[in-house]
C-alpha cells in the first residue's frame, strides 16, 4: 500500500459538489447526533476510508490516535461524577459507569470526526474548493488562483535575493544583527519586486483580454452519471438518518442513566442508513480497486 500518497484515489475523482455534500452531511450528522451507534459507525467508516487512502502510513499514525482515544475516554470519568452506578471511589469521589461510557462515547466521536477531517483535507484539495466557491463568487476564485500562483513565486524570489545578498557580501555574517538586517533588506526589496511583478502580471492579463464583460469560469470537473447516482444515494441516506433523529434518536442521554438503544423500525433504518453512508467512501474505493485489478488483468 505504500506510495499511495501521490496517486489520486477513486473517491477523489467524484465531482466536488458531490464530495462536499458527502463531507458536510457526514460531519454534521456525526457532530449533532449524539447517538452511540451512529458515532461508532462514523468512526469505523472513517477508519476504513483513511486506511484505504494512506495504507500503512496511516497504521503508524494510529500510534497517535490510540493514546488520544484512551486519554479522552478516561478523562471524563475522572472529572465528571454524574451518573447513578458508581464503580469505585477515587479520593472520595465516585467513578461512575455512566461517566465512563460517556467518556468512551466522546472518544469515539472525537476520533471519528478527526478521521473524517483528515480524509476531507486529502480529498477536497484547494482547486475543488475554489471551483465550488467560484460558482458563488467568480472573482474570488480567480483572485485565489492568482494568489496561489504568486505565493510560491514570492518565496522563491525572496530566497534568491537573500542568497544574492550573501553572495556579494552584504550582511553576510552569522551575527544576530546581520541576520535581522538581511531579512529586513530582503523584505524591502521584495516589496518593490512585488509591485513590479504585479504590473507584469496585469499586463499579461490585459494582453489576454481580461476585463471584458461576460467572463466564464472553466474547470476540469465534469458531472457524470456516477456522480448523479452517488449524490442521490447520499441525499436519501441522509434523509433517512434525519428521520431517525426526528423520531427521538437525538434524545439519547448518558446521565443520570444511560438510555436504551431503541430498536424501533425507524431508528433501526436510521442506524442502517448512516452506517451505509459512513462506509460509502471505503466501499466505493474498494469497488474501484477491485475493478482496477480486473482491468489490469486484461491489459
Amino acid at each position, binding site marked *: 500500500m505504500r506510495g499511495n500518497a501521490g496517486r489520486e484515489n477513486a473517491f477523489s475523482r467524484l465531482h466536488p459538489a458531490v464530495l462536499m455534500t458527502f463531507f458536510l452531511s457526514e460531519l454534521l450528522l456525526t457532530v449533532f447526533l449524539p447517538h452511540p451507534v451512529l458515532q461508532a459507525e462514523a468512526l469505523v467508516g472513517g477508519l476504513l476510508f483513511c486506511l484505504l487512502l494512506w495504507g500503512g502510513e496511516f497504521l503508524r499514525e494510529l500510534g497517535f490516535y490510540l493514546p488520544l482515544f484512551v486519554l479522552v475516554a478516561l478523562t471524563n470519568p475522572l472529572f465528571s461524577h454524574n451518573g447513578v452506578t458508581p464503580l469505585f471511589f477515587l479520593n472520595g469521589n465516585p467513578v461512575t459507569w455512566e461517566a465512563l461510557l460517556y467518556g468512551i462515547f466522546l472518544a469515539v466521536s472525537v476520533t471519528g470526526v478527526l478521521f473524517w477531517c483528515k480524509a476531507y483535507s486529502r480529498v477536497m484539495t484547494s*482547486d475543488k474548493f475554489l471551483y465550488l466557491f467560484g460558482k458563488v463568487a467568480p472573482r474570488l476564485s*480567480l483572485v485565489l*488562483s*492568482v494568489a*496561489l*500562483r504568486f505565493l*510560491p*513565486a514570492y518565496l*522563491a*524570489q525572496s530566497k*534568491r*535575493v537573500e*542568497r*544574492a*545578498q*550573501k*553572495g*556579494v*557580501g*552584504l*550582511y*553576510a*555574517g*552569522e*551575527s544576530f544583527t*546581520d541576520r535581522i538586517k538581511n531579512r529586513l*533588506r*530582503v523584505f*524591502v*526589496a521584495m516589496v*518593490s*519586486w512585488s509591485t*513590479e*511583478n504585479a504590473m*507584469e*502580471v496585469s*499586463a*499579461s*492579463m*490585459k*494582453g*489576454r*483580454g*481580461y*476585463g*471584458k*464583460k*461576460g*467572463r*466564464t*469560469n*472553466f*474547470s*476540469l470537473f465534469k458531472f457524470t452519471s456516477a456522480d448523479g447516482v452517488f449524490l442521490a444515494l447520499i441525499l436519501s441516506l441522509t434523509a433517512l438518518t434525519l428521520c431517525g433523529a426526528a423520531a427521538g434518536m437525538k434524545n439519547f442521554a448518558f446521565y443520570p442513566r444511560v438510555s436504551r438503544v431503541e430498536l424501533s423500525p425507524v431508528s433501526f433504518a436510521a442506524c442502517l442508513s448512516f452506517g451505509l453512508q459512513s462506509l460509502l467512501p471505503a466501499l466505493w474505493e474498494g469497488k474501484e480497486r477491485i475493478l482496477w485489478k480486473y482491468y489490469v488483468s486484461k491489459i
Partner: protein
Amino acid sequence: MEILRVENLSFRYPGAPREALRKIDLAVGAGEFILLCGPSGCGKTTLLRLLKKELSPVGEKSGEIFFEGMEQKTLSEPGDIGFVRQDPESQIVTDKVWHELAFGLENMGLPQGVIRRRVGETASFFGLQGLFRQRTDTLSGGQKQLLNLASVLVMQPKLLLLDEPTGQLDPIAASEFLSTLQKLNRELGLTVLLAEHCLEEVFPMADRVLVLEDGALLAEGEPREIGPALSEIRRDHPMLRALPSAVRIQLSLGGEGVCPLTVREGRDFLERNFPDAREEEDKEKDEGKPTPSEDGEVAAEMKNVFFRYERDGEDVLRGLSLSVKSGEILCLLGGNGAGKSTALNLFAGLERAYRGKVLVGGKPVSSYRGGSLYRGNLALLPQNPQTVFVASTVRGDLAEMLQTMNFTKEEEKKRLEEISRSMGIDRLLDRHPYDLSGGEMQKCALAKALLSEPKLLLLDEPTKGLDAFAKEELRALLVSLKEKGMTAVLVTHDAAFAAEVADRCAFLFDGEILSVDSPRNFFSENSFYTTAANRMARGILRRAVTCEQVISGCRRAVEKRGKSERFSDNGGFAPQETEEREASKAYGGEGGSE
C-alpha cells in the same frame, strides 16, 4: 494579404528628451516571419507594445497603426494579437497549467465545452499533456515560456508579437522554443513578429529582418541582404557584431557572393574560397592565450567533492575536482542540471559538500567565520542580477554596501566615484535598478560585488539576456579586471563567449569534470559542444574557435596566396582591400533609414 500596416509612427515617453520611435513605416503580410533586431534601447519593445492596443505605453504618439485594414482604436478582440515577453516567470497568471491555458478563453466568455476542446487541442500541440494538471511553479524556465506561448495561441491570434522570448532560456530550451515558433509559422501560417538579440539561430528562419537603431528603421530586407546592407552603411557597424557567425565571417572576408546564414552555408563558403587555409594552420602556434600550466598559485580548489540537495536525493556532484589558478578566467560549461551553478554555490559557501574539500585561498570554505569569506575574498553574482539590488536606486545599493565596510564618509564617496567610473555606470547611479536594461543591470551588479574587493569573482550565467554589445562590454570588463589580478569563474552556456574570454574551459557532466583545457583545445576537440564558428571552419581550420580566429586564419591563407600568385593573375579570391563589393550594390538602395 497585408495584416498589419504602420504609417509614420513616432512615439515619445512622457518627460523623455528624445523620441523613442521616429517615423516608422512598416507593412506586414499575412503569414510572414519577421525578425526585429537592434541594440538594447533601440525601441524594439516600444514598437511591439504599441502594436498591441492593450499594452500600449503612455506617451505622445503620432502616426497610424492598421490591423487587418482597421484602425487600432476600433479593434475589440484582444485575442487577435498575441504577445509573449522575455521573462517566463511574470507572465503566468494562475497556479495550474490547465487554468493558465484556459485563462484567455475564460476572458473571451466562451462556454465550457469550447474551452475544454481548445485547451486540450493546444496542450497536445505544444506537448504539454504531461504537465496539464501540474502547478505552474513546478515547471522549468523553458516549459514556462512554452506555456506562455501556448496560452496566447489558444486564443487563436492572427498575429504573434514576441519580445526577446528566449532571452532567459538556456540554449536547448531556446532552440526548442524557436523551432516551435517556426512550426507555427510554417504549418499554421501564423504571422510572427519577433524581437531578438541572439541571432545565430533565428536569423535564417526569418522571411524579413528589420534593424532598428535609435528608434528609427536602419535597414530592412531578407536575411541575406542585411549583412551587406549594414556594412554598406558603415564598414564596422556595431550591429554587425550581433549577426550570425557565418554572416560576420563572410563580410569580414570581403563579402564575396551570396551571404551565407547557417553553419552549413558558412562551411560551403569557406571551403569554396579558402581551401588552402588548411596547410597554414599546421604551422600556426597557439598565440595569445598561454597554455594552462599545472603550477601557478591556486585561488580556489575542490577536491573529490560530493553534494546532494536532499538526504534521499540524487548526487548532483560526484567526486568533482577542480582547481582555479590565480589570475585566470575559468569557464564552466555543461548541460542543464550538470551541477555548474551548484559548484559555484559551494565555492561561495551557500551550500555545503557532504564529502570532499572546498578550499578558497588555501583554507576550507567552512573555516571562514562571520562573513569573512565575503570580505576581500570572493563574491558571487547570481543568474538574475535583479536579485542583487535591494535599494531604490543603484547609488543607494552601492552606498549601503560601502556603509557596512567601516570607511570614513570621504573614503566612501571616493570609492563610489571610483567604481562607477571604472565600470562606466556614472549616468545610471540615480536610476531604479529594475528600470535598467540587462547589460546595464549586470554592470551595476558587478560594481556592487566589486566593492567588497574580492580576489575571486564567481559569475553565474553573466551573458544571459545580454545583447552583443553588452556581451562585448562585459568581456572587456572581465579582461581588465583580470589584468588587475582578479580571478574569475564563469558558469555559462554561451560557447562563443567562453571561447573569447576564457583562459581555460572546463566541461562538467554528471557531477564531475570531464575535461579542462584552453578554449582552443577545448572547443576544437568537441564536436557538438562548440562554437558556431568552429563548426563552420572545422573542415579547414580545425583549431579556430572564434570568428576572429577563422577570419585571421583565412586572411593568412590569402596573404600567402598573394605572395605566390602576385604575378600569375588567375582570379580566385582577391583580398578585400582591392575589392569593391559588388554584391552589396543590389541592396544598397533599401539600406538607409527614411
